[in-house]
């Protein structure tokens, strides 16, 4: 589609009389945004923006909100589900790369399921770009950056291989590696083997005869760029201990990385900052304990069972500690931010429809305001993905990626009306958004 337009300028498009929110939290009432050829040409208060004569203009009626397109730093939308348990290998200790979950050579662009509802849903939630990974085990594949356009997403690849996805996920069923320590050993061994293969390939290439041909091992070759620090690991880890384990591996194997999910990353905030490791944080927040949500005012405790739960001293103590733990987890992103860690956003399989609810919790309970949340969903994630100049904000010269909502995005009733991704407008079907 884009190719057929080469050679001549497309007509411009514009929204006028809209409320424009920028990534740094500025709000422009009665704003206008103009884009052409997928690039924002002008944006700002209407008096400062000239709408070209050939622009197709939509009127926002002074009530619609325009936000920079949200970016998911690592989403699994469109990924085929992993195979079942995979049966029993002949030798559980030597299951082969695929069975072990070692498939770093896989590109999401080659596997994406266009009809995954999540891709539509994501646009409705305000996402116009996402780095997509594949479901799987320790090395499920590459991470590819896409413009999110529902079913058309597979045709809208922005960049292949922005990273290689890695995680502490054991092989399914009876197969090596089946433990965290097995995964650690397997990561190491893969680097050793890749190093040897790479060297053999170099030697082979450097001579014309008398040297055995190296075997083709696409799984190992896919790790070369990570080994050479030309491509980062997108490493999923949540617990403090697993984050520490990733850091051990980093010290030993010397790769660049982005931490994905990082539920307890706050416990390692200083270390992450020291190493300049950005975090694509998840918002899969802990479930609020029943007692916290029901007796906030200490009165209207809901009796599920017949007898009222008498709060004993030990229960009270238990609750105090639980509340403390809950708060720490809720404050994860804010703690990281305030410690100077670069924080973006990653859903990593988190249910798209629950995003708004959890953003609300973050807004209400973690001391982050709307513009700080917006920044994480936009500019900050763009920065981490290396697209800080092109994506993440509403600014002249940036890619035209934004969403038009009928209400501020953190409000429960907010609905996406238009999704603009790489300049292409999709009118969102508001029926399906609920």
């Amino acid at each position: 589609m884009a190719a057929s337009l080469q050679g001549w300028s497309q007509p411009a498009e514009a929204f006028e009389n809209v409320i424009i929110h920028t990534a740094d939290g500025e709000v422009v009432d009665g704003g206008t945004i103009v884009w052409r050829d997928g690039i924002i040409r002008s944006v700002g208060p209407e008096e400062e923006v000239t709408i070209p004569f050939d622009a197709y203009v939509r009127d926002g009626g002074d009530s619609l909100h325009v936000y920079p397109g949200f970016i998911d730093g690592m989403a699994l939308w469109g990924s085929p589900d992993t195979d079942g348990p995979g049966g029993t290998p002949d030798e559980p200790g030597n299951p082969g790369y695929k069975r072990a979950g070692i498939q770093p050579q896989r590109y999401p662009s080659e596997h994406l399921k266009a009809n995954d509802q999540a891709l539509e849903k994501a646009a409705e939630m305000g996402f116009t770009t996402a780095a997509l990974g594949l479901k799987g085990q320790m090395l499920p594949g590459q991470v590819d950056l896409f413009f999110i356009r529902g079913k058309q997403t597979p045709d809208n690849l922005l960049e292949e291989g922005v990273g290689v996805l890695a995680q502490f996920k054991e092989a399914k069923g009876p197969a090596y590696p089946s433990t965290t320590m097995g995964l650690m050993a397997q990561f190491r061994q893969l680097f050793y083997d890749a190093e040897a293969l790479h060297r053999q390939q170099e030697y082979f290439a450097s001579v014309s005869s008398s040297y055995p041909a190296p075997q083709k091992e696409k799984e190992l070759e896919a790790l070369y760029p990570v080994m050479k620090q030309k491509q980062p690991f997108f490493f999923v880890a949540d617990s403090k201990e697993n984050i520490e384990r990733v850091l051990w591996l980093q010290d030993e194997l010397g790769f660049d990385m982005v931490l994905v999910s990082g539920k307890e990353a706050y416990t390692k905030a200083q270390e992450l900052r020291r190493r300049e490791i950005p975090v694509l944080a998840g918002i899969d927040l802990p479930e609020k304990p029943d007692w916290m949500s029901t007796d906030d005012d200490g009165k209207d405790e809901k009796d599920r069972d017949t007898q009222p739960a008498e709060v004993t001293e030990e229960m009270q103590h238990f609750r105090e500690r639980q509340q403390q733990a809950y708060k720490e987890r809720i404050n994860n992103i804010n703690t990281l931010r305030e410690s100077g860690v670069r924080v973006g956003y990653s859903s990593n399989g988190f249910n798209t429809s629950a995003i708004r609810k959890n953003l609300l919790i973050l807004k209400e309970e973690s001391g982050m305001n709307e513009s700080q949340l917006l920044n994480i969903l936009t500019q900050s994630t763009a920065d981490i993905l290396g697209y800080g100049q092109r994506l993440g904000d509403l600014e002249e010269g940036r890619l035209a990626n934004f969403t038009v909502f009928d209400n501020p995005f953190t409000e429960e009733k907010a609905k996406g009306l238009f999704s603009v991704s790489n300049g292409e407008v999709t009118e969102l079907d508001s029926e399906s958004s609920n």
Partner: protein
Amino acid sequence: MKKIVLLFFALLLSPAGYAQEKGSVLISGGTLITITDGNKENTDLLIEDGVITEIGRDLSAPDGVETIDASGKYVMPGIVDAHSHIAAVDVNEWTHPVTAEVTMEESIDPNDINMYWALAGGVTSIHLMHGSANVIGGQNETLKLRYGGDMDELRFEGAPRTIKFALGENPTRVHGQRFNVQPRTRMGVEQIVRDHFDAAFDYQRNRREYLEAREAYEEGARGEAPVPVAKNARMEVLVDILEGDIRVHCHSYRADEIMMLMRVFDDYGIENYTFQHANEAFKVAPELRKNGAYTSVFSDWWAYKFEVYYSTAFNASILNANGVINSINSDSGELIRHLNHEAAKTVHYGGTSKQDALRMITINPAMQLGIDDKVGSIEEGKHGDIAIWSGHPLSIYSMAEATFVDGKKYFDRDKDADDMRLEVNPEEDFEHAGRRWYEEHGRRGGTCLRGAEVRFNEQGMHFRHQTR
């Protein structure tokens, strides 16, 4: 009470790396069970900056050092448990008969409450072991129970590397019986060990030759490019065993398999090793003694499977009488809470002396772990890892009153609070059910096979691999 809890946690948790701090304390007037130099009544013990600096009468505490009155009480070295699986994430990388490359060093759970409960039983060090599902299992990690520390801070610095081997029913059941992969028999077990040792020698030679050739090639001293031999994590560890850099701790039960491994080790020149569990070690005590092998046994566990049917609670006493350095271990989050009484059973079964019984949970396991120059007895220059007991530690009525690691108090019965968790799961329910009371005992949990999930239940032993 609540204040105490909060205060404790404030102390324990607030400053990062606090757990690595060492302490100073003067413990005065107690009966010191030195282990290596008899009992010393009414004697003071000074620990400074984590190290025992003075043992004697009428010592005075340096400025700022707390004095604890231990008169009428017993002061004993911290108990060393040579076989434990508490504070572990996973225990068994069971999938291959040989997984020397994995290490419990990377499978530590620093938040396990069982560590605190062990401290309350006077334990200061544990040998966190890989499980017994494979012939050559993973490497173990010796820890100090610096409860509150992170994974790094729990490590016993300077402790030699050790690795788990396992013979008999567990590996043959998991690999041979369940997956049709050798070994299925004790014959096969032997050959798995020999095959892998031979392979390690070959690897060592090939890898060395390659590295030399590569260096020569890169320096221009050799024209022909070498074919790379990849570094192999598994083989590297096996080579280290053969070089004597890693001590072997072998899960074993039957006398024949113990003899087998000693023959194999003799052939390969492996010297420093300990047989774990070794329920039938008593049958070959003279051979163990002759080979300088160590044993680390249960006080009385038996009959949970066939290979421990012909065993005896007198095992430890027979071994001890035959001059074998033996320890009593727990392999259990429950027994570790009262290893002193487990040791006391050696007096009951076979009349081991009380002093020797205490050696079996202090200096003997320390020798087996190669940390006897640091812990296991009360001697000047050794670490301040000790416990104060209300009475003689072998008495059922005695309780650990305070436990110190590196001179720092990690357990204090007077200030002991109910909730000593380090980590709180915000989603945990207050109430939850567990196993039935009559399932708590014995080897039902089979901690050694945790993860491999060879479960003991009413139907016997069943294999189920771990699923997540």
